[in-house]
């Protein structure tokens, strides 16, 4: 099974970083990604994140998401082509002479630029967030979030959401097997996926909802919710931390001062 968004137990420079500085860097990248509309700045960010993953030997993890991201990019670019008309027209989606003499759905440079910017934003944000999650133990993530005074309930929600991703994948697989054993054959491709929604999603959602009571009580009985503070000495900073946060901060300044907004 392909595991997504799960901590990988390894020893890389990213693993050794302080979770707080990683959170700061990721937050910075997300903020930058939202504010800048300059494709070069975004491309530099994506490249930087990818180089960091290469340095930590985690490039495979990022590449796993490539299929999803490419699908997302194509959809976004198509969407902008359909909805945005600005700049020069470089061609038509339905070329001239097929349905009409002049061609239908013009593809404009403005739409292509905007679609590219949107895609790069997603690349940067998702890659950065994924590197944070796969290189930080959930308990360290929890400590860091508590240290910056995020309410404990929200922190637990976040940690639990991450923890249950593979469990839901496995449970989905089990339900799928149970339905196969009843002769269910939804077929392949998109139609099959749509057909299998009800027999698989209904048990999956119902089982997850049934789980919430025990989950909540466990957190109470183990004292998670009464945990408010974290000793600061458990979180130490090293050179990489300063470099990472520094890099993002410099880029941020560059974007603001250089007028790349």
């Amino acid at each position, binding site marked *: 099974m392909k595991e997504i968004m799960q901590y990988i*137990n390894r020893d890389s420079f990213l693993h050794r970083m302080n979770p707080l500085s990683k959170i700061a860097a990721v937050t910075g990248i997300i903020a930058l990604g939202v504010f800048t509309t300059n494709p070069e700045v975004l491309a530099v960010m994506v490249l930087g994140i990818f180089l960091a993953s290469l340095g930590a030997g985690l490039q495979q993890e990022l590449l796993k998401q490539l299929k999803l991201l490419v699908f997302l990019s194509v959809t976004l670019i198509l969407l902008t082509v359909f909805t945005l008309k600005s700049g020069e027209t470089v061609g038509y989606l339905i070329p001239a002479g097929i349905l009409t003499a002049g061609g239908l759905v013009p593809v404009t440079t403005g739409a292509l630029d905007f679609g590219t910017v949107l895609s790069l934003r997603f690349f940067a944000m998702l890659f950065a967030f994924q590197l944070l999650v796969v290189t930080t133990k959930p308990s360290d993530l929890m400590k860091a979030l508590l240290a910056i005074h995020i309410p404990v309930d929200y922190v637990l929600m976040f940690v639990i959401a991450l923890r249950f991703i593979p469990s839901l994948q496995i449970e989905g697989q089990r*339900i799928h097997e149970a339905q196969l054993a009843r002769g269910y054959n939804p077929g392949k491709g998109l139609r099959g996926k749509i057909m299998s929604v009800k027999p698989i999603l209904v048990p999956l959602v119902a089982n997850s909802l049934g789980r919430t009571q025990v989950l909540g009580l466990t957190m109470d009985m183990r004292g998670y919710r009464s945990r408010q503070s974290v000793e600061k000495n458990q979180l130490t900073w090293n050179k990489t931390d300063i470099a990472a946060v520094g890099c993002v901060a410099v880029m941020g300044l560059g974007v603001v001062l250089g007028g790349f907004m």
Partner: protein
Amino acid sequence: MIELRNFSYTYGTAGTPALDSINLKIPDGELLLVTGHSAAGKTTLAFAMAGIFHHEIGGRIEGDLSFKGKDIRGFDGMKELSRHMGMVFDDAESQLIFTTVEEEIRSGLENRFHSEAEIGRRLKEVMELCEISHLKHRAPHTLSGGQKQKVALAATLALDTEVLILDEATAELDTKAVRKVFSILKRLKEAGKTIIIVDHNIDDFLEIGDRVVLLEKGKIKAIKSPSDFKATFHTHEESTTSLPLSKNDGQPIISVKKLTQRYGEVLALDNIDLDIYPGELVAILGENGSGKTTLVKHFNGLLRPYSGNVTVKGLDASMVPINELVKHTGLVFQNPDNMLFEDTVEAEINFGLNNIGVKGPEAARAILHSLELVNLGEKQKVFPRNLSRGERQRLAVACVVAMKPELLVLDEPTTGLDAEESDRMMQLMRKLQQEGHTIVMVTHNLQIVRDHVERVIRMESGKIVENSVNRKFSSKECVSKECVRGGTCA
């Protein structure tokens, strides 16, 4: 220490109380066993004693409940109570919050602000005690059900609370693991902890118990000493009915030859040879992770052999598509909730029939017949998830039986069922056998095997280590070792 006086509790919207006028005093250091049938109020009593109704769930509470001589309402919520009480629930999966076993236990310890040295010491101690040190870096979703229960237990034990409540916390453990829990609890009892074990099967703990509380319909029916309980309620009747042993000279319905299966690096099945003949009732026994479920998944094509081959009624199971094989092999999984999704019991059964092309009056007849077989004839229009656990399990069987497969494979059909429901399930197995089905059940329940099953196949680390006929059903018993290679031996 914990005292209930005229305590009654009614869930939010329910009309009748789940607990009715309970009077019970549990002194410090007692090991109390609470038992009863499904819906007798066992879990409700466990929740009540932990203060969960007063501080978390609410509902209509009458009477008094005190802990350490103080009204339970006087405690500062679960925050304060959880420093004194630890509770392990039945659903192990939901009790694992972090991504590694070590983190799971460590984070609970950190919540209590112990020093780093103490955290390290307790972590090591409790992992060794529960025999999970080797699972330290494993993620919860890679653990078996039994291993998950051990981790949930370890995470609670680590907190070293004065009171420990176990609510059906050992249901998925095999015999060896239950014995381990027994010795852990014995040690804790000697250390002066108060322990409350709530379970529909308390046999494994009678030896260390001080008292047994028997609940029925929310009331205390009896409080007895373990020895009295054993004498009164445990007169296990030896059934005299014996079925003729099936003839094994015909063609096997399932034939497994040199079957090997791998999950990555792990060898899950190692060179298995096995024949199962029409009309047999066979049990596959084994500890958690011994390869039982992996083996039976080959019978309907959910898994294809890594090497070797499996034939089902002469069909090569590695070539024939699943939706063809399921007409011959019906597989009922352990958790019925993983398959129920329709709005009525009837529609649920119809789903499978539809998939194999049975429609109209023929389908209606099959639905009626299978529901009558499993004693759910009255529940045709009921929403499946509103049925009790035992009923849902029987519905799962009906869904598969309706498709009229010659071979029926049941994975842990009695897990999570009380004695009465388990018995009903086994009666059903017998009935299906008499109707001509061949039945294979995967289980770790020895009692059931002894009482009901003709042939026993025992697995260990992916191998068959025993293949013998149950003495109760045959005078021609055989020494297991001789039978290992020979397949059947009657």
